[in-house]
C-alpha cells in the first residue's frame, strides 16, 4: 500500500501524541482514535490503519520475546529480565515461550534485535559452512 504524505503525517502526529512521559498511554490512544473517527477527515481509515501499524512496531520495540527449548527456571528468567531491562529500559515487558523445535539454548528477540544461542541456529550455520 502506497501511503501519501498526508496519511503519513497524520498517523505520525497521532503516534507522537500518544505518549505521556515517554510511555504509551492507553487512554490517550483511545481518545485520539475516537476523535479521529468522529471528525472523519480525508483518508482517515488509511491513517488509522497506518497508526495501528506504527503502534504495533512501537510495542514490539518494548517487548522481549524469550524462546527456549525447555522451561526456564525462575532464577535464570529473573536474571534475563533484569539484564534486558538494563539494556532496553525499565518499561520492557518480557514474554517466555517454550519451543521444542529450537532443540536447546535460547533465542531472545527485542524489536528487530535477535540474540540467537540455540542449537538449531548453530546446526543451520554448520550446514551453511559445509
Amino acid at each position, binding site marked *: 500500500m502506497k501511503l501519501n504524505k498526508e496519511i*503519513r503525517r497524520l498517523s505520525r502526529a497521532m503516534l507522537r501524541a500518544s505518549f505521556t512521559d515517554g510511555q504509551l498511554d492507553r487512554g490517550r490512544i483511545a481518545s485520539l482514535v475516537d476523535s479521529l473517527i468522529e471528525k472523519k477527515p480525508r483518508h482517515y481509515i488509511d491513517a488509522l490503519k497506518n497508526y495501528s501499524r506504527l503502534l504495533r*512496531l512501537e510495542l514490539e520495540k518494548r517487548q522481549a520475546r524469550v524462546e527456549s527449548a525447555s522451561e526456564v527456571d525462575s532464577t535464570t528468567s529473573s536474571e534475563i529480565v533484569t539484564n534486558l531491562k538494563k539494556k532496553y529500559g525499565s518499561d520492557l515487558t518480557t514474554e517466555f515461550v517454550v519451543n521444542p523445535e529450537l532443540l536447546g*539454548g535460547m533465542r531472545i528477540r527485542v524489536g*528487530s534485535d*535477535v540474540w*540467537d544461542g540455540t542449537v538449531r541456529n548453530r546446526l543451520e*550455520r554448520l550446514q551453511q559452512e559445509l
Partner: protein
Amino acid sequence: MSSILEEIETKIEGLKTSTTKSNVGVVRETGDGVARIEGLSDVMLNEMVEFPNGVFGLALNLEETEVGAILMGDNTLVEEGDEAKTTGRLLSVPVGKALLGRVVNTLGQPLDDKGPIKTETFYPLEKIAPGVIKRRSVNQPVQTGIMAIDAMIPIGRGQRELIIGDRATGKTTIAIDTIISQARLNKAAEDAKDSNYRPLYCIYVAVGQKNSNVARVLNTLEREGAMPYTTIISAPASDTATNQYLAPFAGAAMGEWFMDNGMDALIIFDDLSKHAVAYRQVSLVLKRPSGREAYPGDVFYLHSRLRDYSNAPRV
C-alpha cells in the same frame, strides 16, 4: 577419510562461539524480484540481506519502518512472513586473472562448462572511485584496429568513450573489433617478449542482450583467439532485472582489480540503454518516484557513477 572428519571437527569447534546477535525483519510483501521487509532497523544501504533457503537480497530503499530489497537468486523461494537477516556484508564478485577466458553471470559464477573459477579475491560491486589527484592523464593510446577511429578520433588508456548510433549500425562490432585488436597486440608483444608493452585485458558486459547475440560474440572472439584476454559478463534479457542492473558494476569491479594490480583493462558496457531500462523496472517496483519516460531521477547519476571507475589511474 580421517582428514574430512578432522575438518568437520575444527568447523564444529569454530562454531562454539555460541550466541550471535543479528538484526532481523519480516517480509511483508514480495513480488517482481523485490521484497518489502518490516523491521531490520540496523540495515545499511546496499547491504546484503539474507533470506531463508539461501536467497540473498540487496537493501536499496530505507524507509521509516520498511526496507525495500531487490532479490538475487530464485525469488519464488521468498514468501510473506519469512525472516530476513542483515549480514553486514556488501555484495562482492570474484576478481582476478582466473576470470580471463570465461563467461560469467553477474555474480561471477561461470556460465561456460569450463569448471569452477578458482580465485581468492573478491571485490565489492560499488567502491568509491579514486580522487582526481590520484589519476594520471591519458598518455597511451588504445589501438582499436579501425583506421578511421585511430587516425581521426583516437582513444587513450584512461578515458571513456561513448559509442552512440541507431540500431544495427555496428556499435557492437566496433567494440568487438577493438577487443580482437587488443588480443592480437597482446599476443604479438608476448611472442616478441616485449616486456615494455602493457597488455590490455578486455571485459565485455552484455546487459539485456539476446542469448544468441552473446553466443555469437563469444564465437567470434574464440575464433579470433581473443578469449584468453577477455572476460564476458552476461546478463541476458531473460535474466532478472536485478542481475541486469548489477552486471555493469560487477564488470567494473573486475576491471578495478586489474587497475589495482598495475595492469590495464578495457571495459565495454553493451548496452547502457538496456541497463537503464532494467534499473527503471527495479526502481518502479520499489515505488521510487519517476521522471521523464518513467526513468528514475538518478539514472544519469547511475551511469556517471558506473563510468567514474573507469577513468581511474589507468583504464
